[in-house]
């Protein structure tokens, strides 16, 4: 490129560059389109997958969390930031966490604790503007549940009792069904004994019963395949 062509193209690009910035300037001042989020006055819209310090989920049926102090999160945490303790509680079968501390200053928000939790009672909180004069950033996760502990025990006991009752009922039903089946079997056996001379016919009848069943099953499969194709 020649000397003057270079000068000309250079000047042109300079002017067009200044045009771009002038457009932005006018856009900000005249059209009031600054992209700034005026943070303390405006709050940010956080993404659904936003990660902050972990917290315990409050479940509706018990109005409390469901941590059973299994310590799976404490063991898997790569940053050693979770410390929890708990044990048996009078009145309910489940174990219950007593203290659950998470050091937010150590946490790297990897999310392994969420993945490993057997009762799925951990989630991320939405705290986004924490700052303080102190280096102690231990978070007390059970603090907000302390007042609801009695309520939880009551509700949990009710749930457990209901579950136990249901289980007992089911067991009874199963037992009854078993007895019934046993009775029916006994009756059949008795009937078979009575019809002992006809023992050639009985297997044949059973075979005839089974055959159409197989055929219908095969037929179903066939039609399914046709539908799919």
């Amino acid at each position, binding site marked *: 490129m020649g000397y003057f062509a270079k000068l000309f193209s250079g000047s042109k690009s300079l002017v067009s560059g200044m045009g771009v910035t002038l457009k932005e300037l006018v856009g900000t001042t005249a059209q009031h389109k*600054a*992209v*700034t*989020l*005026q*943070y*303390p*006055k405006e*709050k*940010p819209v956080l993404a659904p997958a936003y990660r*902050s*310090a972990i*917290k315990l989920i409050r479940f509706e049926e018990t109005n409390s969390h469901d941590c059973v102090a299994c310590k799976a999160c404490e063991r898997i945490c*790569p*940053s*050693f930031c979770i410390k929890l303790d708990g044990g048996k509680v009078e009145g309910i079968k489940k174990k219950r966490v007593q203290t659950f*501390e998470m*050091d*937010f*200053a*150590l*946490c*790297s*928000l990897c999310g392994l604790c969420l993945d490993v939790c057997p009762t799925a009672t951990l989630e991320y*909180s*939405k*705290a*986004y*503007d*924490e*700052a*303080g*004069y*102190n*280096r*102690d*950033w*231990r*978070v*007390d*996760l059970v*603090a*907000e549940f302390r007042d609801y502990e009695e309520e939880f025990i009551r509700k949990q006991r009710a749930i457990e009792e209901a579950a136990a009752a249901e289980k007992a009922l089911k067991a009874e039903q199963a037992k009854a069904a078993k007895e019934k089946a046993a009775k029916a079997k006994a009756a059949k056996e008795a009937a078979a004994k009575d019809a002992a001379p006809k023992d050639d016919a009985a297997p044949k009848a059973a075979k005839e019963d089974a055959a159409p069943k197989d055929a219908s099953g095969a037929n179903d499969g066939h039609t399914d395949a046709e539908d799919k194709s």
Partner: protein
Amino acid sequence: MGKVDRKDGVVRLPLVNPANTPVRDPLGDEAMVDPAVVRLAVLDDLLNLGRANSLWPLTFGLACCAIEMMAAGASKYDMDRFGAGVFRPSARQADVMILAGTISKKMSPVIRQLWDQMPSPKWAIAMGGCTIDGGPFKYPNQYAIEEGADKIVPVDIYIPGCPPRPEALIAGILQLKEKVKAGRRFEG
């Protein structure tokens, strides 16, 4: 989540150590409506007011948190609204050292040197878990990481997170403003 719910309904973490909550919430409406800049005051108060509203950070990033620090200085969050957007490249002209990122043992003497080069009065903000106490890199027998910025420089504000959002850094600067305005003496 927390029980310290503010007017705007933003959650605060329920901390074990309640001393960590600021004396006066700098994010409350009161602080924003009345910046108290035109208040007549004795010279000391006036100077503190000037210092609080002109916190020039050092252009200085250590690791990944520095990206969030840059974001806080960029258009979306714009720290310059509070007068804290003038990132000075020379330590001689800076007021605040934002320690943004992991401090390796190799870097720590350099940080100390930069801190010594800054003129008083000066402040330090520890941004991110690594600068508070080593963060994810802290484990028994580790040999590479300085476990906390306050082993090197006196830190005024601690911002947790990995990394903290730009809002958290701005909140930290606003809290530092409150601290400077309060008129405590700082040395070194």
